[in-house]
Structures are given as structure tokens and as C-alpha cells.
């Protein structure tokens, strides 16, 4: 099977620091990769490179074998990204925010798409409330709606559970799980082992810009993975 998302030996430095250092991986359609790592490991930089926002100094990223160029607008229309920041305007309603993004992505029948997406995520009844007045859980689901509106092939999630209560986290987890069934490829960065392992097909530990551990998620138990994580970081000199 041809991998959906491929990263080949990508590296990126900032002010002399190697934020991402020779990272490679392949992901097939419908697979979810969870990336764990300490703060400053370069996980967010890696996601930005995958999103086509930052150009890598070396290496390349491709989706369905189409190589990313930073200025490649086609690439950005195939990627959706969710972070712990909503990237929405508090003074606009959910519907207005999504209409704005629909214009940016040049989507056909934006009203119908927005209605469908919001309905799927269970936030349709909140559509006309200002984003600033919504709870964190609803805001995060709206953020997911923004990321999914243009039907991206690849979804990048950077600490999506941050600030969510247990119930909201559960709901979000279910939504993310359903994305895999839709043949999307997902990369998830999280500090939570439980949330990261639940849905992962593959796992990676990133430290000092490198993948210091990669492998299939062979049903790791939580304590087992915690030990693996700590040992791996200790070996790296943490």
C-alpha cells in the first residue's frame, strides 16, 4: 500500500537549535500516529512542517506522493489542523467563523457543509452563539469543525484535549476515532499517555528534535508505556 503521509528525513533549525532533526515516518490511510515527548522536543515544529506552514531545511513531506512546498496552496487544502488554541474569532458566531473559513477554502455550498459538519459534531444548536460565550468543550468541537470543513485527507492534532473536562474529552476522543474510519490519516501530539494510546496505530517518542522511539501500538498497557517513555528519555540524557 502506498503510504498516505510520508516524511523523509526532515530537519529544521531555529537560531542554531535543531528543532526537528532527521525525522522520517510513513502513515497509511486511516492510521493514527501518536507522538509523545517532553516540552521543547520540537513536536509543534514538526506539525507546522507537516502543515506546510514552515519549510524544512532538509528532507520532504508528501501526501499521496505529492510533495509539499511551503507555498503550495493545494497542500494546505488537504490538511486540517487542531491545536489547543481555537484559531476562531470570539466576536463572531460559530456559523460566521465557519463561513469565513469556507470562503478561504473556496468551498461549494458552504451553508450545507457547515450545517452537516456542525450536526455531526453535535454543535448545531450553538451555531449562532458567539464563540467567546461558548464553553471550552464546545469551542474545541467548533475548532474540529473548522479543521474538517474542507474534508482534509490529513488531520494534525496538537494537544487537542488541553483544558477539556472528562466528558468533553470523551466526546472529542469519539470524534477523532470516527475520523479514522473515514480513511483520514491523523497525527496526534499529546502529553496524555491514556488519550494518545487509546486510538493510536503507531506511536513515537520525540526528544531533542528526533524520534527516539517509533513502533506499532501493540496494545501497550499504560504503566508499561510510562516505563518505556521514562527509560527512553533517560537514555537520551534527560
Amino acid at each position, binding site marked *: 500500500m502506498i503510504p498516505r503521509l510520508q516524511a523523509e528525513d526532515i530537519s529544521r533549525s*531555529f*537560531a*542554531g*537549535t535543531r528543532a526537528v532533526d532527521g525525522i522520517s515516518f510513513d502513515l497509511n490511510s486511516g492510521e493514527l500516529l501518536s507522538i509523545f515527548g517532553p516540552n521543547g522536543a520540537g513536536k509543534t515544529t514538526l506539525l507546522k512542517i507537516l502543515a506546510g506552514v514552515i519549510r524544512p531545511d532538509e528532507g520532504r513531506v508528501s501526501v499521496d506522493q505529492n510533495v509539499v512546498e511551503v507555498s503550495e496552496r493545494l497542500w494546505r487544502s488537504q490538511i486540517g489542523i487542531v491545536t489547543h488554541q481555537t484559531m476562531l474569532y470570539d466576536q463572531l458566531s460559530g456559523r460566521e467563523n465557519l463561513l469565513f473559513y469556507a470562503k478561504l477554502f473556496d468551498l461549494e455550498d458552504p451553508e450545507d457543509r457547515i450545517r452537516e459538519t456542525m450536526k455531526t459534531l453535535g454543535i448545531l444548536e450553538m451555531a449562532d452563539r458567539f464563540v467567546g460565550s461558548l464553553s471550552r468543550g464546545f469551542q474545541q468541537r467548533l475548532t474540529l469543525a473548522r479543521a474538517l470543513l474542507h474534508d482534509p485527507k490529513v488531520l494534525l492534532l496538537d494537544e487537542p484535549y488541553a483544558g477539556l473536562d472528562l466528558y468533553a474529552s470523551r466526546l472529542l476522543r469519539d470524534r477523532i476515532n470516527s475520523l479514522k474510519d473515514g480513511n483520514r490519516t491523523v497525527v496526534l501530539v499529546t502529553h496524555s499517555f491514556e488519550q494518545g494510546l487509546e486510538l493510536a496505530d503507531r506511536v513515537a517518542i520525540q526528544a531533542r528534535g528526533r524520534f527516539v522511539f517509533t513502533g506499532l501500538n501493540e496494545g501497550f498497557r499504560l504503566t508499561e508505556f510510562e516505563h518505556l517513555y521514562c527509560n527512553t528519555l533517560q537514555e537520551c540524557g534527560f
Partner: protein
Amino acid sequence: MNRSRMKKISMSFGILGVAAILLLHYMVFFWVPTELSMGIVQRIFYIHVPSWWVAFISFGVVALCSGVYLWLGDDRLDAAAVTAAEGGMIFTTIGLLTGPLWGKIAWGAWWTWEPRLTLALLLWFIYLGYFLVRRSTLNPERGKRLAAVVGIIGVLDIPLIHVSVSWLRSLHPEAVVLNPDGPTLDESMLATLLVGLLAYSLIFVCLFTVRYSTELVDRATQMQDV
């Protein structure tokens, strides 16, 4: 270009520059005739004009290196731009300090809104903005890009400023004691001025190459430390 070669270049330009400066000072103080109407203080003209020349050339170098840096992303071009900016700021300051001295003779006033002086004042602030942007941006790489943007926009505005100020001044001719563009130059005065331009240019190139090589060493050291 390796460091020993750069050192040789800077030494050569330095030696030639110092020789030219010595020649210039000889010519200014002992050789060139005293200008009839302005007297002995007119001689500051031979310091003042060359410093302008270098200040504007430097800014051109800043803008050119900034443009190519944004295009190619080569850090050495950014190093060259900041080096030229430092030199340019020094020479602009010299020009701004000697300008009023010249203005007091030519116009009887410490400051007048003559196009070159006005442009130099604004150029000084454009340089200031260039350095402030570099230093105060949280991400150093972004700071270099923003400084390059400031450098390019600055150079685009310079001709607009000059044309606009000159045009405005033509509407309101000021009473001048003497020709504000400088004395009508005879051959010896022209020769002295040309030597001044050459001397300051050589000194600038020497300072530029020395500073550029130390800037590259600083950057390499920072990367190693990290």
C-alpha cells in the same frame, strides 16, 4: 571567502584608506585654496559630503542584501546587511553632526530643511527602526526577516522623500547667505572632494570587511554553543 583572505582584503583597504585620509587632511588643511565667500570653515564640506556619500551607499547595500536574503535565505547576506547598516548609521551620524556646522555657514542657521539634510535625518531613523526590529523580535530568525523588510521599504521611500522635499523647497525658496548646494568647485576643490569620497569609501570597505568577518565568527560561535 575564507577568513585569511578577508583579513588581507580588509588590511589592504585599511592601509589605502588611512593613506587616503592622511592625503585628504593634508589637502584640506594645507593644499586646497580657501573658498572666497565662506572662508576657512568651508573646509568642513570635504568631510561632510563624503560621509553622506557613504551613508547612502551603505543603505543601498543594506537594501540589496536584504532583498537577496529574503529571496535566497542565505544567512551571510543578512550578516552583510547588518554590517552595512552599522557602518551606514555611523556615517549618517557624522553627516548629521557636520551638517549643521555647514548649514550655519551656508544658511546662517543650525538647521534648515534642505533636502539632503532632511533625508539624512529620516535615514538615521530608518536605520534605527532596522536595528530596533532586529533586537526586539522574539524569534531571531523572524527578526532578521522583518529587518530586511524595513530595509527594503526604507530604500523605496528615499527617492520619494527626496523628490517631495525638493519640490516643497522649490515652492518656498529660502533666503540663503550662500549657494546651499556647496561652493562652485574649481579643479583643486573638486580633486579634494574626490579624494575625500575615495578615502571614506576605502575606510568603509575596510570597516565593513572587518565587521563582517567578526559577525560571521559570532554567529558560528553562537551555533556551536547551542
